[in-house]
């Protein structure tokens, strides 16, 4: 019996043991299959990784290209049509055009940052009848101190109002003296900028630019290369003060423009010029006529019931003007002082107030005197009349991309009873030339 019991127990033990062995073998298979599944997924992940890596490289390259731009479409009503501003002269003998829709800007800016500190910028402006390049430059930043940057190409001349984009500007147009002294705002050349804030925490910015100096004078074909050998030099310094506890920031600085207009041709009967004092002279080919001025600027930002700013710039110096008929290559159509060298002065004062998040009100008084040596009845030509412009503007920021601007400009010219002024529009009267602009801007 004992033998039978031992035999049964041995059998049962064997069966139990066999079951455990069977269980173990199932577990072993399960782990292997799990391992296989993991390996299979690992292979799939590796394959995906291989596929994604080149795509990632492409995405990284694409991320170096930034595209921005804006469109400004507007409706304007004018008291009179001013061909100099609006670009199209009315047909003689027809009724003047007093209102118009127009596309003011349609710009797309491509910025490619090849490496940290190397930027290529290309910004075409699309117009109804042509495409014009506005900004085209290479910018090299110094990688070691993050302080200096070198710009080469076509870029904004370094002044506050010129560099402040028209997409952000509080008024429909820049002040009169900026438009006259810096036609089309840009010029071709090289610019060295030093910003001591990043590395040294000194809020000082210095800019020195060497420019062809003839951009936007004469026809568009002139803009390809310089028309003379002389170059213009601009230098500007801006220092920023911050008083965070008072919500106050003040930027102030100065600039100098050192250039000249070289007489590159003369007419068969040599054209006679007048100098700053009204004395006549006949310049020879190769003579340099003065084009230099000094200026100062200040922008004050104050956080009082929302943002408030006061901005001003002042310039005083000498500018020479060429007559379109005699010197078509060099004429600045906005400086109508034909064949004259003149002491000039210009400034603006503007006050801007944000109301809530979406509204901005602004007012500007700007002055340009094309001949500081004469005033009142001494002024014997329209070209020498001083202009004082008032501009009132309101902006509504519809969303982050769209804003609507209503701007009203009232140019007031100096009155001169000098009988030499015979044009009835200006003879001892203020020329009626106010403009109301309703502008829609989409920015991306």
């Amino acid at each position, binding site marked *: 019996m004992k033998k039978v019991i031992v035999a049964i127990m041995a059998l049962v033990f064997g069966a139990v043991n066999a079951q455990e062995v069977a269980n173990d073998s199932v577990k072993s298979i399960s782990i292997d299959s799990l391992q296989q599944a993991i390996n299979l997924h690992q292979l799939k992940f590796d394959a995906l990784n291989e596929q994604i890596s080149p795509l990632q490289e492409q995405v990284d390259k694409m991320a170096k290209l930034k595209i921005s731009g804006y469109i400004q479409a507007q409706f304007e009503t004018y008291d009179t049509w001013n061909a100099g501003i609006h670009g199209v002269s009315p047909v003689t003998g027809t009724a003047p055009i*007093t209102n118009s829709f127009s596309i003011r800007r349609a710009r797309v800016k491509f910025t490619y940052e090849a490496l*940290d500190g190397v930027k290529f910028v290309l910004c075409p402006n699309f117009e109804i009848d042509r495409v014009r390049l506005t900004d085209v430059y290479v910018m090299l930043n110094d990688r070691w101190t993050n302080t200096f940057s070198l710009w080469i190409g076509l870029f904004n001349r370094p002044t506050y109002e010129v560099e402040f984009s028209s997409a*952000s500007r509080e008024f429909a147009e820049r002040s009169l003296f900026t438009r006259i002294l810096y036609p089309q705002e840009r010029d071709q050349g090289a610019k060295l900028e030093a910003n001591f804030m990043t590395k040294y925490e000194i809020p000082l910015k210095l800019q020195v630019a060497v420019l062809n100096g003839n951009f936007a004078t004469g026809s568009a074909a002139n803009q390809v290369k310089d028309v003379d050998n002389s170059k213009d030099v601009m230098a500007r310094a801006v220092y920023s003060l911050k008083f965070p506890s008072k919500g106050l920031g003040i930027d102030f600085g100065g600039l100098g423009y050192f250039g000249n207009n070289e007489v590159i041709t003369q007419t068969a009967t040599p054209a006679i010029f007048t100098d700053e004092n009204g004395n006549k002279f006949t310049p020879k080919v190769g003579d340099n006529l003065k084009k230099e001025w000094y200026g100062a600027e200040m922008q004050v930002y104050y956080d009082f019931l*929302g943002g408030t700013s006061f901005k001003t710039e002042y310039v005083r110096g000498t500018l020479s003007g060429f007559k379109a008929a005699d010197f078509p290559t060099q004429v600045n159509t906005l400086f109508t002082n034909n064949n004259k060298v003149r002491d000039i002065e210009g400034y603006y004062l503007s006050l801007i107030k*944000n109301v809530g998040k*979406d509204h901005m009100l602004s007012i500007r008084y700007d002055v340009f005197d094309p001949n500081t040596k004469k005033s009142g009845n001494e002024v014997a030509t329209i070209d020498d009349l001083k202009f004082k412009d008032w501009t009132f503007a*309101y902006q509504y920021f519809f969303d982050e991309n769209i804003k609507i601007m209503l701007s009203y400009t009232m140019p007031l010219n100096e009155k001169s009873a000098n009988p030499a002024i015979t044009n009835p529009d200006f003879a001892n009267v203020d020329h009626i030339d106010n403009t109301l602009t309703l502008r829609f801007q989409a920015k991306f």
Partner: protein
Amino acid sequence: MKTTKLKAALIVMVVMGIGFSFTAINKVTVKGSDTMVILSQKWAEVYMKKNPGASIQVTGGGSGVGLAALINGSTDIANSSRPIKTSEVEKLKARYNTMGVEIPCAKDGLSIYLNKANPVSSLTLKQIGQIFAGKITNWKEVGGADASIKLYGRESSSGTFGFFKDNVVKTDFSPSCQTLPGTAAIVNAVKKDRNSIGYGGAAYAEGVKDCGVKKDDKSPAILPTAATIKSKTYPITRYLYMYLKSKPTGETKAFIDWILSPAGQGLIEEVGYYPLK
């Protein structure tokens, strides 16, 4: 006459525009730094419990994204783990005519994460910069094993990326630095790879080891601890900021005042950062 009617119509449009835009919404939106999301959400949650009428909406996206949202008007507060850039202040000046308002609200230390099996335990700031710039590529160059260094970092929109680049790397990151979406992902990657190195908030260092950081060859290695970060003896210490367009008012002011009060500052260490005082 036509012109008069036109001008009148324009004025009516403007008045209507003003009327519609003054609709009051009593909600505060906070956007920006991913590093600060948990902290900011904690603040919002506790503040809303104490002030049932308040609505604080917190989202991340990165410091750069938050500051861009502040500039374009789509957020009231931008959280940033780096100081605002000059170019961003210029945009605030152009759009809002203010310099912006900077409010430091907490302190943080950036840890250098190493795998626990890595024999290297300390590095100088210069060595860390050179490693992430790709100038040092093998651990043996800094006293470790003969193995290539695997780099993990954040996306360029991240304030942590910006702060680390400006203060440690000081040049371009190595192209081989793999960007990951968030500090937790970096910690996870370093945990798995013994030859890897990453950076991120000191609070996230779980399952990895913190690398001691030396200011230079002669300085002692400092680990990112509460004491060294608070006292700023740890070399990679930073402030966490909130930025506003202009001085806060209403609910935004109340929320910020509360964050800077002992009640708000008291919550900071719970989520792994350090109070201002």
